[in-house]
């Protein structure tokens, strides 16, 4: 993957020759690029228009974060309240609790959930029996399609103190009953486990696609050099998908403060609310009494600002380490 040899198998000489043959132009670099690549601009046009029309045109809607937006009045006639939605949000006595819960969950997600698909993809990559590999690949992403409501329901059935199979098992193993569903201490691990169960397999798809492009020659060379399985994984496979991992990580940071609303909403109850309440569930409940629009847009704006800072920051960081980054 290093492009040292070109298509013809010759050195870069052919290209160099071509370059040398061109007259040196120093002015209007961009004009020259434009002319040379005019087809690229044609290609990019549909996508560009898409973003302008369907993403940027509706973006003026963000102003409702600074209003008390009422659908009937519309944006023009709704009252402007300046930063009031934001001050309400930040000065809320629960703000720090929500922030804590959201952050902790986000971190758990990053530390435990993010690597899981990568590991599974790597393991799957080592399977040589094609039938087994394809089967496991298909099975493992099935939970992605199961709705969260069902998963919450199944979780309840297994863990209920009133006769849940897993509940009984846990109290038998540990000697004392642990009400996983009600205990604040077990809430976050439970959420992460549920999430992994549901999305881990689906997440492997991208990595498997990346792994499909790894150069087997390098493997063979390393075997000759006496490298064992794990060595090979570490030195060849991982670096090959390193760029993909970094990109996905950066993009994940863009949604850092996004927690799985539906999942958390379903698993919250009176006994674990202290650790369960996050920004998203809070905005939802407020939205019912207050009117979702302005408040949720304001909180969304806040999350977006944090997200973009994280994305730009991590992108710069990645580049410092020599990765291509997002751009």
């Amino acid at each position: 993957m290093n492009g040292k040899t070109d298509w013809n198998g010759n050195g870069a000489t052919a290209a160099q020759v071509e370059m040398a043959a061109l007259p040196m132009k120093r002015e209007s670099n961009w004009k020259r690029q434009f002319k040379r690549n005019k087809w690229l601009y044609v290609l990019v046009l549909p996508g560009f228009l898409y973003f302008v029309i369907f993403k940027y045109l509706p973006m003026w809607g963000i102003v409702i974060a600074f209003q008390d937006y009422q659908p009937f009045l519309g944006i023009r006639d709704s009252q402007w309240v300046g930063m009031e939605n934001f001050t309400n949000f930040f000065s809320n006595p629960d703000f720090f609790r929500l922030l804590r819960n959201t952050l902790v969950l986000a971190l758990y997600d990053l530390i435990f959930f993010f690597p899981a698909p990568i590991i599974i993809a790597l393991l799957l990559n080592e399977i040589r029996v094609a039938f087994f590999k394809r089967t496991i690949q298909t099975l493992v992403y099935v939970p992605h399609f199961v709705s969260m409501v069902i998963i919450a329901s199944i979780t309840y059935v297994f863990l209920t103190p009133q006769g849940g199979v897993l509940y009984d098992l846990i109290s038998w193993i540990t000697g004392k009953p642990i009400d996983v569903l009600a205990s604040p201490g077990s809430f976050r691990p439970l959420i992460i486990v549920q999430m992994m169960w549901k999305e881990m397999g689906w997440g492997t798809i991208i990595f498997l696609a990346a792994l499909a492009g790894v150069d087997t020659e390098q493997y063979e060379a390393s075997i000759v050099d006496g490298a064992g399985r794990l060595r090979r994984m570490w030195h060849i496979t991982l670096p090959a998908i390193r760029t993909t991992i970094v990109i996905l990580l950066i993009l994940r940071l863009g949604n850092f403060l996004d927690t799985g609303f539906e999942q958390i909403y379903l698993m919250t109850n009176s006994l674990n609310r202290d650790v369960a309440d996050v920004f998203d569930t809070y905005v939802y409940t407020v939205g019912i009494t207050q009117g979702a629009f302005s408040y949720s847009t304001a909180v969304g704006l806040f999350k977006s600002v944090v997200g973009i800072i994280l994305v730009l920051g991590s992108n710069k960081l990645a580049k410092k380490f020599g990765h291509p980054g997002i751009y």
Partner: protein
Amino acid sequence: MNSRLYNSPAGRVFDIFNYVMLGILGILTVLPFLYIIGNSFATEAEITERSFFLIPKVFSFSAYEYIFSSSTIFRSIGVSIFVTVAGTLVNLFFTLTMAYPLSRSDFWGRNVMMNMVIFSMLFGGGMIPTYLVIRGLGLLDSYWALMLPGAISAFNLIVVKNFFQQMPPGLEEAARIDGCSDLGVLWRIVLPLSKPVIATFALFYAVGHWNNFFSALLYISDSDKWPLQVMLRQIVLLSQASVGDMANMDPNFVQPPEQSIKMAVIVVGTIPILLVYPFLQKHFAKGVMLGSIKG
């Protein structure tokens, strides 16, 4: 291949470990779905009793009969298939054509455009402004309303662009020397070598379309154009009617459809799209890229 690679004792231990772990994982992940399928064939009585684990004692097709008793369901399946296929093609068209130029380092304007994409990924106007734009374009109640608003996912775009960037530059240079235009390079070199990537995102987009009910609920009032998920979601909602919802129904309201129907809905709504992946899997075969690079 060299079996030497894999038959060292350490290698074999690793293999066994690997197969076992992945096997367990496979079982764990598919179990809930088997549970759902089993429940969809059970009678209501058995479900409340929880008298079975995976396979009900008495098989009943009543849930499926209920779902398929209306002609509208079949129509909505047709709509879903159409929107998924056409929609995915639209997605691929827009995404691939935009990703390629963005992957080229000599594409002037690249940074500006990338900024635009990333910004739009994180900031958005929300449901109502988007609705008003769609309405302004006259797309309400049309299939375009289901396919255009999500034509490009910024996330997908960025990852695809990244994959394009990872292609050996030598390839493109060589093709250009041979007289290929940019379009040609895209069409003849880049795309064929990106089959795993295209397959992956075709799958992502397709799943997105198949599962999407919200767009239809918002933009489409003509019930003839409702995709499957809209119908299914209504059925699930009914079977899940809790006390609060009861208040909205007729005082004479007869009991809601059974739990088994909720399960059957999931089966009907999920299996078609589940079957897509195995077909795409052949594109994930290793070494697709490599034949072209060998010296």
